[in-house]
């Protein structure tokens, strides 16, 4: 994993407030009402991670809670970075970060 990827594991993120998730048999469809982009989340585990990011201390614990094996974390982090680029997820201000 790159340094940026490793760093993301320890960061707090959340679903962007402009995004709605629509459950689908293959995973979910994510729609961004601001930039009108439609993104497909192709695995139910990915949907669970994205949906619950805001409830977890950091990305690592969200991946753990969704039952994603550690070997797959790099792939998930890469995917999450793609979602961040499209503003589907946003970094969360935490008290630690603010301090």
């Amino acid at each position, binding site marked *: 994993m790159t340094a940026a990827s490793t760093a993301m594991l320890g960061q707090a993120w959340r679903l962007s407030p402009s995004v709605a998730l629509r459950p689908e048999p293959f995973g979910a*469809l994510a729609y961004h009402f601001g930039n009108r982009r439609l993104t497909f989340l192709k695995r139910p585990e990915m949907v669970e991670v994205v949906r619950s990011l805001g409830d977890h201390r950091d990305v690592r614990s969200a991946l753990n809670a969704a039952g994603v094996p550690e070997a797959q974390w790099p792939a998930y982090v890469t995917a999450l970075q793609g979602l961040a680029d499209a503003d589907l997820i946003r970094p969360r201000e935490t008290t630690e970060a603010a301090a």
Partner: protein
Amino acid sequence: MTVLDAPDVHQRPATGSLVEQFEFGLDAPICLTWELTYACNLACAHCLSSSGRRDPRELTTAQCERVIDELQRMQVFYVNVGGGEPTIRPDFWHLLEYAVDHQVGVKFSTNGVRISPERARYLASTDYVDVQVSLDGATADVNDYVRGPGSYDTALTALENLAEAGFADAKLSVVVTRHNVAQLDEFKELADRYGATLRLTRLRPSGRGVDVWDELHLLPEQQRVLYDWLMAHGDNVLTGDSFFHLAAFGESLPGLNLCGAGRVVCLIDPVGDVYACPFAIHDSFLAGNVLDDGGFQRVWQHSPLFQQLREPQTGGACASCSFYDTCRGGCMAAKFFTGLPLDGPDPECVQGHGETALAHERTVPAPSQDHSRRTPERRQPVLVQIGRRPEPAEPPVTACAQSPLAGFTPDRDGA
């Protein structure tokens, strides 16, 4: 066809490409077309919904609001609103606001007739609203020939008003025909001039389109021109996934390259009837009505027709073609309205199988409905060209039927 025993839930693979997943259908459409009225101020020669006159059964304002409520519940994030000319419905602007207030974004197609400077300013002030202005010629002569006199100026005035009001990224929507395929660069320049995005779609033999398809659909060499142009400019041009039949030229064009009918798209018509796709307004593709028990959701998720469209399709006559995996047999509506079998080649198959199929005996289906105006009016296009009458394909029964002087050659030498 037997569809009664179609199971409600398909055995669906847990993995597989998105396209494979889409072929099994989604819980709600990705993109829904909703035609609000059959009334139209124009009478385009190729109108795919045979619009003109309002239908007295068209959904009321309250019924339209209930449909929007349901789309919100189903999380259909945006609808393509069309017609007819949707903006001439008196409650159009109200419904637009109602949809946006209920998290249903709207992209509406218009010929521009109601896009005044004032409306343009209103549109520029809204989020979630996209405007698509139809234009089928980069010059007035080419456009007005099919869309009617004055329609070019109307469309350009609308684009001008939108740009002036600061509306960002309107769409300039073009149906590609034999007459305008040479103007693709000019269309792109026009779109750029107004800060708009060019959108190219395929001419379908749907609605009145069937009457002019033979004259207007692309010639084989023009399909290649279009394909090459899209390959060179495709990233900056929208196509609504219209041209996936061209994939059989080689490389796939950007997009899903699949027929989404009843799987990821469908159409709600002005009276609430739900059809498999916007180009298939015919009883054969009618899945139900939004006013039926269970509403739109029940039609989408459980109608026997849509269940059938989501079953794995066989290539039929195309199965042995090495390009089947790329073009998937082309467009269902194009085949249906030209009287070709649905499990065979597209009439515009770029490998030439369409021409062979068209040469066989076929029956073009009679239209299920027609909202064209009964009497011609001032702004109606007249597809007449002045030229020599074509030579008859067969000789007349007797020579005299052709000319009373047939066979008589005056003896010039004797004069």
